[in-house]
């Protein structure tokens, strides 16, 4: 076995995986507070990328102004989605909630396509294209930035969950009714988690947009995000980071060796198989709580 190739696949996979964690973190944030599995996270990632470009293009703002503005916009979008679509579904069967997020996914995707068109738009973050050399290994600089941002967000969330608002969110995720009875506004907490998740989605949209351009394919990150979130445990942010790392390495290495054998396109297969195996072997993931209903 060629060690350099293996190392390169593994380390680039790890970076990509940490960028998957960005998508997964959004899913985890919402699941943690309201037990809603957000299948619209991919579409929200895409919307985030488009909003940044729209602000940059529409008002001619430079990207470092446009990105904070877009984060603020998406914060409001997240609050709005929760208020309009999800709040009335609280307590309904899970199939309705899943269908609602799928409907949101279709709606957000198609609406952005209607407004901005399907052509791929580049997102110039000003990160140079020249690879970073780590001994004999080549690293993509954008992936490195993405990985750093993912870890930074993870640390931020660790700190956030120690603040007053963070503790409120943790209480909500523990027990709805108990939180209500001690005077916590559960609705506001859930709305906040949607808003935070939209902000994370925008970050993911910017970083992935700078890797592959902003277009509809950003929404396909959903499968990867879901796989990472489930592998890490649907209610564990640290799990999302570690699972992203693991899944990224596994996907990079496995598809690196499988692709020549089967003629390409084995990435999605590896991800889907990981998701299935996780659910069959350890449904609560690496760090999730064990109280998932089993048969």
């Amino acid at each position, binding site marked *: 076995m060629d060690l350099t190739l293996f190392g390169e696949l593994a380390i680039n996979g790890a970076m990509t995986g940490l960028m998957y964690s960005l998508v997964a973190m959004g899913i985890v944030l919402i699941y943690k507070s309201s037990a809603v599995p957000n299948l619209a996270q991919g579409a929200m990632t895409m919307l985030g990328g488009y909003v940044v470009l729209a602000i940059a293009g529409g008002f001619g703002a430079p990207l470092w102004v446009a990105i904070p503005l877009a984060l603020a916009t998406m914060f409001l979008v997240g609050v709005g989605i929760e208020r309009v*679509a999800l709040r009335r579904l609280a307590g309904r069967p899970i199939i*309705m909630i899943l269908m609602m997020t*799928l409907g949101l996914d279709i709606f957000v995707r198609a*609406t952005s396509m209607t407004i901005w068109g399907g052509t791929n738009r580049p997102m110039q973050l000003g990160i140079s294209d020249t690879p970073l050399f780590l001994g004999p290994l080549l690293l993509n600089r954008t992936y490195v930035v993405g990985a750093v941002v993912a870890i930074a967000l993870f640390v931020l969330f660790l700190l956030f969950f120690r603040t007053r608002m963070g503790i409120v969110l943790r209480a909500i995720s523990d027990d709805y009714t108990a939180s209500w009875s001690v005077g916590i506004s559960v609705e506001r907490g859930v709305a906040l988690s949607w808003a935070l998740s939209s902000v994370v989605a925008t970050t993911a949209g910017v970083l992935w947009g700078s890797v592959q351009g902003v277009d509809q394919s950003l929404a396909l990150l959903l499968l990867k995000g879901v796989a990472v979130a489930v592998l890490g445990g649907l209610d564990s942010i640290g799990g999302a980071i570690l699972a992203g790392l693991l899944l990224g390495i596994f996907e990079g290495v496995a598809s690196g060796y499988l692709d020549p054998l089967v003629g390409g396109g084995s990435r999605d297969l590896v991800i889907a198989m990981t998701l299935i195996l996780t659910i069959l072997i350890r449904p609560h993931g690496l760090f999730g709580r064990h109280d998932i209903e089993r048969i």
Partner: protein
Amino acid sequence: MLFRQAGIFHTDYATNRALFPLPADRWMIIILLLLALSAPFTMSSLLLSTNVLPWLVWTSAALGLNLILGWAGQFHFGYAAIMGIGAYTAVHGARNGIPWEIAVVLGGLMASVIGVVFAFAALRVKGLYLALSTLALQYVMDWVISHVPAISGGTQATLQAPGMRLLGQAVTSEIALYYVALGWCLIVTVFMLNLRRTALGRALVAVREKDFAAAVIGVHSLYYKLVAFATSSFIGGISGAILIFTFYRAATPEQFAVNVSIELLAMVIVGGLGSIIGSYFGAAFILLMPGLMNSLIAWVAQLMGAALGVEALAHIPHAVYGALIIVFLLVEPMGLGKMYNNLRNYLLVWPFGYARK
């Protein structure tokens, strides 16, 4: 629909438990059947072959999905893959000289076998995790269908469906194809109507409501889950095969991709979980509404003198489709079938609303 229950008294169990206890219902069904049978002669052939025929086939598929989702309460986010398996098996069978009827049934059986693989996930987890694992299996099936040349005929390939011969008669005209689709849809509908009157249907409902409660009253929930997956996959596989033979005439992997699974789910949800007439409504709604809305929007835009880009027009139906799902879940989560039932129950005792049971 415009009839009342007045003067109808069931004096024995047989009439009370008949498929359609009200004579007016029976008359309505007969009239609908006559309309369906005479449709080829009263409708334009364009309407028949582009709208009515796919509607019938998608309805049978939606009914199959409703069996697993509405009756047995098990999530299935990979139903399109099951249809694809049936379709590809049938097309390959027919291309290799197996008589058409047998090839289609083989497609259904193959879909059943693979469907039971989906069920193994259901034996282990339920709810959200079942949904996610079936969704992942859909991706795996997609990949297998498009990447194994023996199945799809190579990447980006279309597999031409051979001509149909039903009981030795070549089926080529649009009218004949319509009758094949109608026949299959009727078979599935009658099966589903009878399902709720049989022990199997009741057992499935018991499993849906609470599987360990079902186990307590002697319903083997694992067994019935497998049966539900196998039966609904059989219906799905044959519907997929009939879809290819009567409508698409050629099979490509994209016809059975993830978004088709979601579309089928939307049909069932918009129609109403566990509602048979709802599946008809839901399939019609999801198939036809985006197109109608699109022409409406184009017409309004033209009227107002605003120019819409080709690309915008191409994506508006999808946006409408997503919005429809959202609006339905917010306004009437039990779907169109529930709306129809509300109206019917209101009219049954009209104008004596207080007499409603």
